[in-house]
């Protein structure tokens, strides 16, 4: 039998057998290529996720000698009644909607503009990236300083320099402006990144398509709607998924701006607070699982929406 296989493998004349071994070697190659990825993903994502799901059914405490007990669905029952978590979901969703919306529209506009040929393009491209090159924690500190109601440059501009406002505003502390102030920082910081991703997508679109469209008399707007946007779809999907997931998991800007202020907690801050401040590892894990599920819903929505359009 094995001799047969070897023989048929060697017999290049037999087309059928050759195709079969080709398929097999392709499969083996695929697994070989994926091996490093699967190993890393297992260690840094799957193992922690499994651990967290397990903990969400227990009353585990952080750094405690008290024995961990299995509590069934108790944490989940509590979660459903937890208005603090409900509030953090709304805060996070509003933040995500505002920032991803603005970043996508602005980023696309910027990508379209810097994709064309003009003098000083290199400088403008690099200048655009400045906000994104600054570490989030430090950018947040910088903005906190600019927003300050006593010595901040923003109030100086609106009150003293232009007179648009009568008195300084405590942008971060005031409930009505706090979410907008933190969203502005995120938009400022991340729009360049969105533009960079979309720009890479624009670069791959072959230019002959536009020439053909021009010959056919398509207007610029028509070219944009029926050529650029559809061809940009793979890049748009990457960008939107990545940005949405990041916005839903937002932590650092909120943490620097507000600490653990109850009215401005995001889902990630709410989970972190339960684990670190209240040492409630079990309940924190439950919240984390809920966050994971909420974010996963978004991934499914995006992927299916784009799949349906493709078909």
């Amino acid at each position, binding site marked *: 039998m094995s001799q047969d296989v070897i023989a048929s493998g060697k017999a290049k004349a037999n087309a059928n057998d050759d195709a079969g071994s080709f398929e097999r070697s*392709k499969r083996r*190659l*695929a697994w070989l*290529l*994926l091996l*490093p*990825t*699967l190993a*890393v*993903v297992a*260690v*840094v994502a799957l*193992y*922690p*996720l499994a*651990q967290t799901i397990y903990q969400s059914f227990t009353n585990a405490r952080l750094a405690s000698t008290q024995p961990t007990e299995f509590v069934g669905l108790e944490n989940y029952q509590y979660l459903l009644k937890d208005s603090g978590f409900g509030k953090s979901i709304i805060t996070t969703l509003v933040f995500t909607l505002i920032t991803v919306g603005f970043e996508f529209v602005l980023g696309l506009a910027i990508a379209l*503009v810097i994709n*064309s040929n003009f003098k000083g393009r*290199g400088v403008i491209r*690099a200048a655009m*990236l*400045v*906000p994104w*090159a*600054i*570490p*989030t924690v*430090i950018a947040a*500190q*910088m903005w906190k300083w600019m927003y300050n109601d*006593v*010595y901040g440059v923003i109030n*100086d501009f609106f009150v003293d320099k232009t007179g648009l406002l009568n008195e300084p505003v405590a942008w971060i502390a005031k409930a009505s402006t706090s979410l907008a102030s933190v969203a502005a920082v995120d938009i*400022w910081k991340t729009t360049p*990144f969105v533009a960079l*991703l979309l720009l*890479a997508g624009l670069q*791959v679109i072959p*230019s002959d398509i*536009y020439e053909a469209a021009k010959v056919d008399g398509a207007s610029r707007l028509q*070219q944009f709607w029926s050529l650029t946007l559809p061809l940009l779809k*793979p*890049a748009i*999907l*990457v960008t939107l*998924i*990545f940005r949405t*997931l990041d916005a839903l*998991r937002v*932590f650092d800007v909120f943490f620097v701006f507000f600490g653990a202020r109850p009215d401005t907690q995001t889902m*990630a801050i709410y989970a972190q607070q339960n*684990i670190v401040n209240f040492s409630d*590892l079990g309940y924190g*894990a439950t919240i*984390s*699982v809920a*966050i*994971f599920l909420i974010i*996963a819903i978004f991934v499914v929505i995006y*992927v299916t929406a784009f799949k349906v359009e493709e078909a």
Partner: protein
Amino acid sequence: MATTLDTNKSAAQATAAPPWSARAGTALRYLVLFALGLLFFMPFIISFFSTFKTTNEILSWPPTIFPQEWRWSNWSETWNTTIPGASSNIFPRWLFNSIWLALVVVVAQLFFCSLAAYAFARLQFPGRDIIFAFMLGTMAIPSVVTLIPGYVFFAKLKWINTYWPIIVPSLVTPFGIFLLTQFFKTIPKELEEAALIDGASRFRTYWSIILPMARPALITLGILSFQGSWNNFTGPLLFLRKPDLMTLTVGLNFFKGQYVNDWPKLMIGTMFNAIPVLILFFVFSRYYVEGQASAGVKG
């Protein structure tokens, strides 16, 4: 193939409108670009001039743009910072640690992510779509989830105060694979099929057809992973305790006082954080633009 020779120039020509509106459009474009550039650049400029001020002046009211008295020594003081219990050139040391870590991460990610992306984009194998979806799903895991179990896991391996817990998780990222897979799929299959029929190996088609064609995406991933590693905060914060081992982002914490931050040093540290990424992008954005065109010639 020759049609793709000068992609960008012809792209610009294709979208060019009649002269009068083109000129108005150009003026408008520069105006918008200038406004946006200023908006994006302003905080950086303010921070840059602040590196020459005293902490008192940075916190004074009304705020100043230009320093009243230029303290050039802020930069040399930052460069020669001393920390108790650390080697004497601690600031250059942090910078060096950040640089080599970033380089390792960039090379690893470009290599491993592109291999996996090639498998997802070009090879048919059972379970491919499920594994791909699964991998995308891991992007939905919030960092609070991975932080504590990850720490415990690496601590068991006795990897505290080594660079392994920082390098290993960034060897390959689902995002990088996703980005490259999406781009590989947009590359026409005909080129490779022709090469395969001519007897080229899979590796050869990957190396000399796919990679050159996907240059904009590879450069994007290179810049993104460099920036990601350069600005990585939680990893080094958790695993590197000795000042000598720290990277720049974490080292900057020494400039945050218990009551008052050492603002000039923090700002200078920020400059060191931002500038390498900008230089990198400035240098590579040229290839970025040329990527597609030259790939067409080779193909």
